């Protein structure tokens, strides 16, 4: 999909280049037109000089000249209008090009995040992928990943970045900033400028991303502090929160199912071996 978007971005880039080329051609046309007019003016001057000896010829020439000037002025006016319109179009295309570039970048980030989350069925690898996405794509400095057992209501920390795991608090579903976010399934975002403590020091979270599969809570990603250069969240960050809420939950859920099936398979194999001995 991104490959296609990249090609589409390049095609649009080429379209913008074509617009600039059209602008250049248009300027060349203007210069040619100017040269033609200068030639015509020289011709008229020559005729004026030839006809200046007779009053009748002079009057005829003058009316010809006046109508020619009017015609040229109209032409000049319409060309200026066209030039302004082409310039306006150029500006619009340049702005659109920048927007498309930004969209391309955002899509690349979302694709990478999604790809990495689903590139493994090992639960430790899934958690590692979540950590990498939150550090590298969102830019969080301190955050934790919590999971809850099926049917349970406690979100237990399984990984933390920037602090000690054993000092990271648990959260109860339905209670507080994180618990309520997981219960409702809504990403909760506080003002990053006013908060940002360590979880071990009872710091307040600034973001809670609920992880749910089919309305059932699977866990949460809790961000406490952003990297220094991040003063707030961009629209891409919000897209990543939404992506993580769905895709990370599915990845964790899938890895659990895989682990369960592996365990069952191993039990069945053991049982069969026992029976066949």
């Amino acid at each position, binding site marked *: 999909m991104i490959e296609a978007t990249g090609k589409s971005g*390049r095609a649009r880039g080429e379209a913008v280049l074509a617009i600039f080329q059209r602008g250049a051609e248009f300027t060349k046309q203007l210069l040619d037109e100017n040269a033609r007019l200068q030639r015509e003016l020289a011709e008229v001057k020559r005729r004026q000089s030839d006809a200046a000896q007779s009053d009748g010829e002079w009057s005829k020439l003058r009316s010809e000249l006046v109508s020619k000037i009017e015609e040229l002025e109209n032409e000049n006016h319409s060309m200026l209008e066209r030039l302004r319109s082409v310039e306006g179009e150029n500006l619009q295309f340049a702005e659109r090009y920048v927007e498309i570039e930004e969209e391309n970048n955002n899509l*690349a980030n979302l*694709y*990478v995040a999604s790809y990495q989350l689903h590139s493994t069925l090992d639960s430790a690898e899934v958690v590692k992928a979540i950590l990498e996405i939150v550090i*590298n*794509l969102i*830019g969080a400095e301190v955050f934790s990943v919590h999971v809850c057992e099926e049917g349970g209501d406690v979100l237990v920390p399984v990984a933390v970045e920037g602090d000690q795991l054993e000092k990271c608090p648990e959260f109860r579903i339905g209670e507080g900033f994180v618990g309520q976010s997981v219960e409702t399934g809504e990403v909760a975002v506080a003002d990053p400028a006013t908060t940002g403590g360590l979880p071990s020091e009872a710091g307040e979270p600034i973001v809670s991303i609920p992880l749910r599969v089919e309305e059932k809570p699977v866990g949460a990603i809790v961000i406490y502090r952003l*990297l220094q250069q*991040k003063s707030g969240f961009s629209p891409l960050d919000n897209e990543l929160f939404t992506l993580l809420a769905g895709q990370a939950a599915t990845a964790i859920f899938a890895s659990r199912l895989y682990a369960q099936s592996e365990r069952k398979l191993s039990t069945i194999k053991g049982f069969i071996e026992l029976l066949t001995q």
Partner: protein
Amino acid sequence: MAGQRILIVEDSPTMRQLLVFALKRIRDVEIVEARDGMDGLRKVTNDHFDLAFVDINMPVMDGLKLISLIRGEEDLMSMPICVITTEGAREDRERAIALGANEYLTKPIQANKVLAVARSLLKRVD
């Protein structure tokens, strides 16, 4: 910039994939990935590269060690290097520049910045 080669030395698959996505927009560029500093050193000494993106924190051999070894090789002295750091790691960044890195990018990286840095450093090679 046709036919140029870029090496990405980064342990995080997420970052590697993101860098590849950004750099693929440069026409006719070949991108090679290395998982850590040692892998990067092996690749950079066996093949020619026009530019390298090097993460600082990596297992086996970190980015600072890799940069110092690269700059110690006569053939590789002029190869442009861009380091990838976190904003908090200012000392690492300064050390990398002192060791001979040409540019740095801070996380979270943005594709357009990666592209701009790559284009600017590849121009130096031209």
